[in-house]
């Protein structure tokens, strides 16, 4: 208990000052009669909501150009130069790899794995992971040992490395990009159209989903975004639509082709792996209604789910190229009735397109998407009137996302005191905003090879091999801190994605992980990020802790720190019995970044 003696005194002081602290605006539960936001608060709000929080100098820049001009610019990212962010991610070569390369590498990984298993013999693992039997064979010395790939081989595993690189790219872009709104919306839509890289080929195909399906459409028409997602091989694999077929028997030719493929790719027999029959799989048909468009209260039935699944029969991807492919042989060509609307027989691939048209234009979709966007940008429980107004904009503009979010930013609710700092940051938002606030820069291993090994290691841990080890490491990457804080990137299991209700992030264990991140970041223990908090307090008198603190909190939190927090932090930064009055800037920074104020946006 010795270590906790000091805070008791702080605590008692805290109680004395409890009343003034309660009046401080911004804490939840504060009375509704709040003053309108000041100009500076409006700027900070915009930077926190349209982006991942201010970097040093951002508030001044927005002040200079005007809030409206800033918002307009963010709505047109193509007009913003973003070479710095693009340069930073340029070294991540898997981001540019074609689907065909990546899916070939995915198969290559399995083949290498099988080769290793054959060499060392672990049929139980093979059965468990792939449901296939291999002939038990022993290594030359007769020993049975687990297959551990050589480190040089690890770096070549592109299909695993792409997971680590994509996570890293997401973080780097969020920290560095000038197109902040694009990055926020990319996070939003990737969460909306959630794909879990832990599901087999998704890990290789997710790169194309991010690059080709989501990013080009984050501010475009919802119908186009929905269509891009529906054609995305990663989504087709994640929700099993590549397995969705009319009831049929495989032809002799098909069986031969599959056998040849498996034998050529993996060097083993496909016997017993494929069933002669194929049939419907409702997974995608259900989730597109429930999660992507209408919402769970969108008024559809189990019958609608089945009809949606029928529309998408035959929508699959080629195992050779990893690109979309419509397989007419597997399509159910009968007539469908969905949500009371008929899709005539014999339309083939058009069935799915017609269904997407219907879904994108349903009023329930407008409401569902608008509510989620309001939850992201305004508050956890946005007023119903706001949602209804935004849904009208959605309908009137035929789902023009740019117009929809513009309407949200123009709403009085967006700039209301009730919305100000009302959202708890997700772990991703928290980590990115802290790095931005402290003017952090990414660092890389001296040997590019080691970066590759790191990305394979983290990609592998994300898909289920070795996350315990990474979490235990003394020094972790930014990516792994986000994982530990409870938000593994591209790896939310349920198709729902992470909740937009930000209070769900509040939990004791996760809070400790956040404090540990703040400490690690300021002690330069986040292995791929360097910050320079001393630069933030240049010119301040180091012997005047109050002055140093004020400079720092102004820079990191723009004045939004309670007098109480200030007092407690100063007391702890200057423990009794210390001779020098000089405060540790890094310790002050840690306490501010770990404070409850910094958990909000």
């Amino acid at each position, binding site marked *: 208990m010795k270590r906790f003696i000091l805070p008791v005194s702080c605590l008692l002081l805290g109680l004395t000052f409890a009343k003034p602290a309660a009046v401080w605006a911004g804490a939840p539960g504060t009375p509704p009669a709040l003053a309108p936001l000041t100009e500076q608060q409006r700027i900070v709000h915009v930077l926190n909501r349209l982006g991942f929080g201010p970097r040093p100098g951002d508030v001044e820049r927005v002040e200079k150009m005007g809030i409206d001009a800033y918002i307009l610019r963010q709505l047109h990212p193509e007009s913003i130069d973003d070479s710095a962010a693009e340069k930073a991610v340029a070294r991540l070569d898997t981001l540019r790899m074609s689907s065909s390369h990546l899916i070939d590498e995915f198969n290559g990984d399995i083949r290498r794995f099988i080769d290793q298993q054959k060499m060392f013999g672990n049929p139980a693992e093979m059965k468990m992971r792939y449901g296939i039997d291999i002939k038990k064979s022993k290594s030359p010395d007769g020993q049975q040992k687990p297959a551990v790939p050589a480190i040089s081989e690890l770096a070549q595993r592109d299909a695993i490395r792409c997971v680590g690189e994509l996570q890293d790219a997401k973080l780097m872009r969020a920290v560095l990009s000038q197109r902040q709104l694009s990055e926020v919306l990319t996070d939003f839509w990737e969460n909306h159209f959630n794909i879990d890289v832990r599901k087999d080929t998704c890990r290789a195909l997710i790169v194309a989903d991010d690059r080709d399906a989501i990013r080009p459409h984050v501010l475009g028409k919802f119908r186009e975004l929905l269509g891009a997602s529906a054609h995305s091989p990663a989504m087709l694999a994640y929700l099993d639509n590549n397995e969705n077929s009319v009831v049929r028997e495989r032809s002799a030719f098909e069986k031969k082709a599959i056998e040849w493929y498996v034998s050529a790719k993996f060097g083993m027999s496909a016997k017993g792996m494929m069933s002669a029959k194929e049939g419907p799989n409702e997974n995608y048909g259900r989730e597109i209604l429930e999660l992507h468009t209408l919402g769970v209260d969108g008024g559809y039935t189990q019958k609608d789910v089945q009809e949606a699944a029928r529309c998408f029969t035959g929508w699959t991807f080629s195992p050779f190229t990893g690109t979309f492919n419509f397989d007419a042989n597997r399509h159910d060509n009968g007539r469908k009735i969905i949500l009371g609307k008929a899709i005539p027989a014999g339309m083939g691939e058009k069935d799915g397109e017609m269904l997407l048209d219907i879904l994108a234009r349903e009023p329930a979709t407008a409401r569902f998407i608008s509510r989620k966007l309001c939850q992201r940008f305004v508050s956890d429980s946005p007023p119903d009137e706001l949602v209804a107004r935004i849904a009208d904009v959605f309908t009137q503009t035929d789902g023009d996302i740019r117009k929809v979010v513009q309407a949200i930013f123009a709403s009085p609710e967006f700039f209301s005191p009730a919305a100000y700092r009302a959202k708890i940051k997700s772990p991703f938002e928290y980590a990115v905003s802290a790095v931005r606030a402290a003017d952090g820069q990414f660092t890389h291993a001296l040997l590019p090879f080691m970066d590759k090994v790191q990305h394979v290691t983290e990609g592998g841990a994300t898909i289920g091999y070795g996350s315990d080890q990474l979490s235990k490491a003394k020094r972790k990457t930014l990516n792994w801190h986000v994982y530990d804080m409870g938000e593994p990137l591209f790896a939310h299991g*349920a198709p729902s994605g992470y909740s937009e209700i930000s209070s769900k992030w509040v939990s004791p264990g996760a809070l400790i992980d956040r404090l540990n991140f703040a*400490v690690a970041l300021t002690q330069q223990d986040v292995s791929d990020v360097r910050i320079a908090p001393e630069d933030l307090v240049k010119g301040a008198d180091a012997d005047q802790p109050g002055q140093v603190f004020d400079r720092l909190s102004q820079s990191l939190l723009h004045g939004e720190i309670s007098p109480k927090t200030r007092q407690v932090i100063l007391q*702890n930064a200057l423990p009794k019995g210390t001779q020098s009055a000089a405060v540790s800037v890094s310790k002050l920074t840690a306490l501010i970044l770990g404070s409850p104020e910094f958990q909000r946006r």
Partner: protein
Amino acid sequence: MNTSRRLFLRNGGIALAALGAGAAFDAGLLGRVACAAEAAGGARKKVLICIFQRGAVDGLSMVVPHGDRAYYQHRQEIAIPRPARAAGAEAALDLDGFFGLHPALDAFLPLFKSGQLAAIHACGSPSSSRSHFDMQDFMESGVVDDKHISTGWLNRALAQRQLAKSSPFRAVSMTSIVPRSLQGDADALAIRDLATFGVNASRSAGGANMAAGFEGIYDSAVGDVLRGTSKESFNAIALLKKADPTQYAPAHGAKYPDGAFGHALLQVAQLIKADVGLEVAFVEVDGWDTHVNQGGANGLLAGRLHDFSRAIAALYYDLGDKMSDVLLLTMSEFGRAARQNGNRGTDHGHANAFFALGGAVRGGKVLADWPTLAPERLFEQRDLAVTTDFRDVFAEACVRHLGISAADMPAVLPGHRVEADKFRGFLKR
């Protein structure tokens, strides 16, 4: 921090010190410490461990109705074969002549035979939804098709159990985020790893000071939801610091399988033995959504079940006598379709099988009002029908294990009529 909490921390610390010493001394010492603490504390401390199999496990493969002919008609390629007379054959392990265990659940067989393990079959939610996320939410909220209840049934059960001494470890989830089951007004803690739970500021000169600083800041954040969260965190850290959880060695030769699930159960055992006031533990395990190539006696699902049963059996042997106060209950949002799909897998279905393990369990039985898998008896012509409402299972656990009075149950399971004659009777009275 209020006085009673401080007091508790001190008392709890003694037990935790014993936990740290557990590796050096024998299990008997731990037992004696625990008994002493129990005598001092009065009532026997019941613990409920809930294991959520996320993704809808195939109950028809876990507890195989090998006596139901329709089962083999629905699942020509993936059925678990009838119990074999020859030893070593890959077939269901017979339980009662009608039901059998999946061969990968063989670690459960001795627990079943010794009467400590029961299965509850054809159990689930009357809701006709087949959405993972809806049904997980409903089950964890303890409701059927009601979206207005966002707190969890376990949390509301805790609220009905106001003990004299509250502990920050009353409810622990071995996850990064507090699951829906434990969300609500009662304190609940999400811990991924006991060994590293704390603010790791030792490298800086004033490491302890840093932790203290955070504690002070959050304590002064009056009116902020984060304040309560931090209080729970810091209380728990203080308790855990007293011990060195890395020194834990399972008793009775218990061996937990590698992986997150085995590790989570090991830590639950650790908390129970440390006697830190644990009432409810929550553990989740995923990988059950077997739409494709689920396999039969071998394969994807078999691999999952193998680890699943070994981890639970390890906890059972590790806890030894302490199992007499423990009820372990497994659950999953819904079962899988009676018929296999076109990919040698199974799609979302309806009823499922739960397991109950513990000293107070009337085990050695598969409890079910079996609806049969005959096509005309299937729910919506496709799934095993529900004949035991999952809420009656939860209610029985609350009333007979946690000692919540039936009169208080409406607060735990709103909208559900709790009556003892609806209980399946998996617990001794």
